[in-house]
């Protein structure tokens, strides 16, 4: 068994999985914080309900991101020890900064938020959420800085064949990192917003299906209530209609941000990793045309079998340079250039194991880059289009009774997730055969690069890697079932699932009296039942 292949599969599987939870955390967090801010500002209970409900789903998801993030940090050392030795001087620093300057804030303040409902004043309690959310957003920055260094190594000098950090500022302000960070955060907002839209649609639909809400002759909503169903009062309607509108607007804005930052990223990538972009475009020969559809054997190394079905002249040039007539180098031109710069064969070094001296294939798997790139864009556009459609369809205050439309809305939640996954698979597999891509831009440190084949742990056997891959995949699959199960259960429960007092409206409230925690006349807070307990 080849440890390298297994280690790559493991990194791919665990990272994609981790990045299902993470964008939802990053995207939903600010939305919940915004809702609680509105509650503190206006005192309208609608906002409190929104905070509690979306906050509950946020937490169910958050913990999975935390748990799977540990694997990410450990596996560099476990499976990629040569990589860790090579890049340690520069790559460990952003990871440590993430822990010290971001993740500590996120975890400690989220604990305060979860348990602090009746222990902290309203404004202080709101602040704990904002700090936790800021922690997650800053955390993403340091992780992207680390990843971007692998795409575009800067701020280092080669000493004894090893990159040694000389400029932390250059590492933190790496242009690749800044654009990738903006792209990632806006992409995460699209994920969080799409989640809110899909679930709010279901809730509005459920209210109509249960004949709680109806529409008048002009199609305008007539809000009702049903006291026998927990939480389905009149206020409940405003929770969902406000949520769905907020979600749709953020989804559209998020997509706009994703498109703008994606364009900036592509322009950088044409410079920094030209072969990745050429592979993403299926651009075999030099030219200016953008391929809308290409068929044939995209995996063929010399592009002989690739047939462009639909091409638009000028667009590729526009994507790369902002004009329509700059010639863009294709795969067939770039490969000899890479061979001239970085060699035709892997070095005869024991680090490469059986691969020592083998010919290097500089072309990433073109099916993956080509379709990954298109799926990313396609899913993103689909999600944004649905959000726009939603905004128009709910203009009269509710959603149609169509079960099919409701199903589509729930399904649309998956689209931004799909775009995120496709984008990461594209950019990570497009970097191959390098784990640290060379930096051919002027002023770059061009000697700093590392082949993935040299990065894996030399002392770890294929059997050990199989053991970890199988265990983690099994555990991840198992836990995903439970996460989705719980999310579905809490969604079906409506706001009452997060606010037990709505389920028992007549006295015997969950937290005793439901009194204001700020009330200074209260006898002794210490005897209260906890507002939240595991």
């Amino acid at each position, binding site marked *: 068994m080849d440890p390298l292949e297994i280690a790559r599969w493991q990194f791919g599987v665990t990272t994609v999985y981790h990045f299902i939870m993470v964008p939802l955390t990053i995207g939903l967090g600010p939305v919940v914080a915004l809702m609680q801010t509105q509650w503190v500002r206006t005192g309208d209970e609608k906002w409190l309900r929104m905070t509690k409900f979306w906050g509950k789903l946020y937490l169910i998801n958050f913990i999975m991101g935390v748990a799977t993030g540990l694997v990410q940090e450990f596996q560099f050392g476990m499976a990629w020890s040569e990589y860790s030795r090579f890049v*340690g001087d520069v790559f460990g620093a952003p990871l440590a900064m993430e822990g010290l300057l971001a993740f500590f804030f996120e975890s400690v303040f989220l604990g305060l938020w979860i348990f602090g409902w009746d222990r902290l004043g309203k404004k202080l309690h709101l602040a704990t959420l904002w700090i936790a959310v800021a922690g997650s957003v800053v955390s993403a920055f340091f992780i992207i800085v680390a990843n971007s260094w692998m795409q575009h190594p800067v701020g280092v000098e080669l000493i004894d064949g090893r990159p040694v950090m000389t400029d*932390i500022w250059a590492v933190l302000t790496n242009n690749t990192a800044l654009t990738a960070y903006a792209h990632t955060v806006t992409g995460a907002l699209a994920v969080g917003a799409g989640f809110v839209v899909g679930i709010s649609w279901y809730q509005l639909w459920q209210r109509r299906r249960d004949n709680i809400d109806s529409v008048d002759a002009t199609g305008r909503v007539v809000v009702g209530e049903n006291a026998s169903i927990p939480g389905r009062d009149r206020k409940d309607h405003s929770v969902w209609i406000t949520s769905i509108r907020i979600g749709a607007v953020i989804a559209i804005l998020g997509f706009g941000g994703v498109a703008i930052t994606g364009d900036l990223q592509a322009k950088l990538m044409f410079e920094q990793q030209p072969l990745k972009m050429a592979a993403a475009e299926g651009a075999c020969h030099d030219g200016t045309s953008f391929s809308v559809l290409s068929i044939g054997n995209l995996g063929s190394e010399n592009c002989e079998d690739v047939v462009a079905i639909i091409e638009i002249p000028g667009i590729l040039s526009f994507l790369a340079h902002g004009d329509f007539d700059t010639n863009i180098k294709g795969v067939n031109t770039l490969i000899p250039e890479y061979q001239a710069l970085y060699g035709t064969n892997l070095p005869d070094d024991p680090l490469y194991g059986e691969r020592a001296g083998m010919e290097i294939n500089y072309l990433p798997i073109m099916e993956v880059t080509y379709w990954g790139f298109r799926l990313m864009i396609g899913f993103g556009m689909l999600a944004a289009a649905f959000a726009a459609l939603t905004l128009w369809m709910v203009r009269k205050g509710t959603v149609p009774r169509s079960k099919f439309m409701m199903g589509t809305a729930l399904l649309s939640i998956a689209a931004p997730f799909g775009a995120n996954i496709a984008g990461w698979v594209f950019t990570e597999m497009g970097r191959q055969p390098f784990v640290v891509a060379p930096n051919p831009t002027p002023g770059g440190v061009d000697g700093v690069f590392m082949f993935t084949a040299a990065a894996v742990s030399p002392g770890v056997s294929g059997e050990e890697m199989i053991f970890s891959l199988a265990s983690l995949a099994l555990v991840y699959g198992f836990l995903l079932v439970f996460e989705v199960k719980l999310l579905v259960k809490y969604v079906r429960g409506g706001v009452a699932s997060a606010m037990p007092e709505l389920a028992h409206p007549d006295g015997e409230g969950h937290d005793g009296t439901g009194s204001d925690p700020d009330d200074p006349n209260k006898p002794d807070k210490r005897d209260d039942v906890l507002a939240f307990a595991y």
Partner: protein
Amino acid sequence: MDLPTLWFIAIAALWIGYLLLEGFDLGVGMLLLFSTRKDRERRLMLNAIGPVWDGNEVWLITAGAATFAAFPFWYASLFSALYIPLTIVLVSLIFRAVAIEYRGKGSTDKWRMWWDRALGLGSLGSAFGIGAALALTTTGLPIDANGDRVGGAFAWFTPYAVLGGLAVVGFSLVHASVFLGLKTDGAVRVRARNFVVRWSPVALLPIVAWVLVVQFQNGTPITWALVVVAVVAVVFGWISARAGREGWAFVGIAAFLVAGASSIFAAVYPVVLPSTIDPAFNLTISNAASGEYTLGVMSVVTAFGLPLVFVYQGWTYWVFRNRLSEKHIPEAHVVKPAVAPASSASASSSSDS
């Protein structure tokens, strides 16, 4: 003091901070395996660590990442050599974290029982694996000139690994009991105090043995002095626990850990990972460290970030300083679908408009 030494101290401090804080979280998880069957008592124990456990775990993440940043060769060699035990640690930590969050979100006894088991075994696996890893980095692993493990997937499995594993498991059980004695009231408090008095002489034996093993191999007068401090602290802690002085018991056990673990790190300095094949292959603070510039940057970041962590994490403990008892634990909330029963979906029409 040179920067690698400073960073050796910083990483030792991060690991000690981790054991000091997460020790009682892991211990509470393990105690759930056997200490009580009453759900309300179990929830009381869990909620005693509820607001703080996640923040405590960040010490582990930061310790790992700081090792990567400051001593990449140590990080790479240790983590790859301990491939199997660290895989078990990861799976354990995942189950533990998810179990804490999910156990109360189901409505059946079976659901809670299985998540409690996941929580208990996850805590046990994490404590044992992390203990084994820490013991091995102080007693040595068969690593070659490149820092790679030789001798196969189970070359790490030595008496020292078992000793280290038992050391952290035993310490966590005692530490958690001292913590529960301090933070809870009622039957849980009484049981926790009795556990400390009866079992800590046994449960703390492995950690004492680990300390002594390292001291006999590398001890200096200073590190032996730390051992004396640790022994005094643990005796003081035990006497305080027996006298029902829970606050002092906690101080005693915490001081025991800090002094004992410090004596270990101080004794092995400047070696961070000894090679059991050839001392020439030892990883030390000089051949495993990052460059001066990186260590300098990390020092500035830590000098700014870590005191801040002390402040706000300390504040969390202040906010949740009150003892919890069973009366504070709310009824378990049963989540029901907010939909009309299938038959009456059309009957219960909108009330008014």
